[in-house]
């Protein structure tokens, strides 16, 4: 939904100026958007209000799916399954976001400001994309020999006598899930932040130096605010991916950790489409709210 708003905004004044030709030019992309974005979204929204039994879907308009999702919430002073899952997913999302942002910003900063030649920048940048030469799942699975009970890390820890027995928390745990998220998604932070940083006029850094700013002050008062767009775009990438993720949490969590994406996937596999659709709508609303809050948050920082 967020993607349709800018298109609508930009095409409207253009149409006033250019007439049918502009519409025609915008039509192919508009059609793609309509077919692959708006129609599925509307369908999901519609299906989320349908009724279903064990063996059939009944077109209807009932809030029963939404009620079912939040059933039992707030009744026993304890969190219901849905809320617990959301809290857990949000926790993963927050950890993945913080770490990918920290690492991504640092790497982007290094590439943009410390690597002098464009050739070297390109080489190092390509290096960052090497993990993408293999599939997501392979990259996750390759952690197993490293972190497993008899994996490299445990062997090393034992041989260094740091621990007496293999550490269980290394694999199929929250730790390994967050680790995999960071591994997989940091590049989504690096690229947009690097992009923003490359657009910063280098004279601004000298101006900051001239004004007596320390390197940290320059970083905080000039580079961070001017990388804002990149930070927001990167954050949107990471947050949307992690919020909807079920594969990484499944593989790295040993199928033991719940997530919102996982719930939707399970419900879909049991053909409970209306319930899954309702969950998807809630998740979408949630993610949009986070993104909205995020853009606010970054705005507020500037006023301090």
């Amino acid at each position, binding site marked *: 939904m967020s993607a349709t708003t800018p298109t609508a905004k930009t095409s409207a004044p253009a149409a006033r100026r250019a007439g049918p030709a502009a519409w025609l030019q915008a039509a192919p992309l508009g059609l793609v958007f309509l077919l692959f974005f708006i129609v599925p979204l509307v369908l999901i929204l519609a299906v989320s209000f349908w009724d279903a039994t064990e063996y059939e879907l009944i077109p209807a308009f009932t809030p029963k799916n939404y009620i079912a999702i939040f059933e039992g919430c707030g009744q026993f002073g304890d969190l219901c399954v849905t809320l617990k899952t959301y809290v857990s997913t949000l926790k993963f999302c927050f950890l993945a976001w913080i770490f990918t942002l920290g690492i991504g910003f640092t790497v982007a900063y290094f590439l943009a400001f410390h690597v002098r030649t464009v050739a070297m920048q390109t080489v190092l940048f390509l290096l960052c994309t090497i993990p993408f030469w293999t599939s997501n799942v392979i990259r996750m699975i390759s952690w197993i020999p490293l972190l497993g009970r008899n994996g490299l890390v445990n062997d090393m820890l034992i041989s260094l006598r740091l621990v007496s027995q293999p550490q269980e928390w290394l694999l199929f745990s929250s730790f390994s899930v967050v680790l995999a998220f960071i591994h997989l998604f940091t590049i989504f932070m690096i690229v947009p932040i690097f992009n923003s940083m490359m657009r910063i006029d280098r004279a601004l850094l000298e101006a900051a130096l*001239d004004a007596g700013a320390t390197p940290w002050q320059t970083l905080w008062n000039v580079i961070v605010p001017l990388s804002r767009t990149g930070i927001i775009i990167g954050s949107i990438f990471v947050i949307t991916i992690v919020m909807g993720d079920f594969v990484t949490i499944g593989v790295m969590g040993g199928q033991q950790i719940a997530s919102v994406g996982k719930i939707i996937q399970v419900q879909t596999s049991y053909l409970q489409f209306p319930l899954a659709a309702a969950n998807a709508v809630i998740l979408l609303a949630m993610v949009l709210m986070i993104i909205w809050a995020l853009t606010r948050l970054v705005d507020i920082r500037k006023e301090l």
Partner: protein
Amino acid sequence: MQPSRQSELELIKLTKRYGNTTAVDAIDLRIPSGSYCCLLGPSGCGKTSTLRMIAGHEDVSDGDILLGSRNITVLPAAARGTAMMFQSYALFPHLTAQENVAFSLKMRGVPKAERLKRAHDLLERVAMGSYAQRKPAELSGGQQQRVALARALITEPSVLLLDEPLSALDPFLRIRMRAELKRWQLELGFTFVHVTHSQEEAMALADQVVVMNGGRIEQVATPHELFNAPASEFVARFMGGHNVVKRNDQTIAIRADRMQLLRTPGQSSHALNATVRGIEYQGTYVLVSLDAEANASDDLSVMLQEAEFFNAPFEVGTSVQVAWSATDAHQLPA
């Protein structure tokens, strides 16, 4: 901001090397306190490197920089008592004009209310008070220059360094802001060091013009001296408005407006035969360019008063004699 502030700037054997190339070659220069100094030269002559070394944005390879009684050669940029105005002003695009001006106070931890007030006072001073809340992108080039000036002034520098400050402006605005720079310098009374490649700009602004070429200083002089007594062929050619003529193993420079065009050759030895190549009307004068006979110089140009020219216009292709009086010939070192 007292005019009495110690702001004499002295460069001693100042050198900048990048690998094997020497950008600035052991230059000595004294810029008197409270003067407007222009570093003038073609691109790559070392003028910008010199300015950046004074500012502390470039390491000095060799030599010293003295400001007043202090040696500032190795001091950090902000501790030198210099302030820099950048080529395209380098205003922080995410901050308002007022925040831009207050930036260095913020870095020093001056409380918000105080720094914003001082920034506002300075903006008032450069007649930008009503634009305090605008972002740089919402300001015109001239307004940006004023904000940049206010930002430079807030540190109360004793030397203001300007790196081609007018090059980002369109020609009309350039002339207006040029006048403004001069006015501010007179009002503030401290040393301005201004880098430019425009001799017109240097002539209009400077008390002292430093012409540089190939990392060395060709001449240090007032604009008047520079124009009437160029120290070298390079200076004469770079300043423009001169004809460089080689005669009898001597090189002389004659101002283009001190030359006469004669239809009938005279007997003077201070004359050359030439053919009119082109005529450009310039308003107050007409610029006649000529091909000299006998390769005495590559080309000549003569400025004739508008009235003088139109009394008896020349045509392209006419053979003429270009003459000058001996007193107008300025001898250049060979």
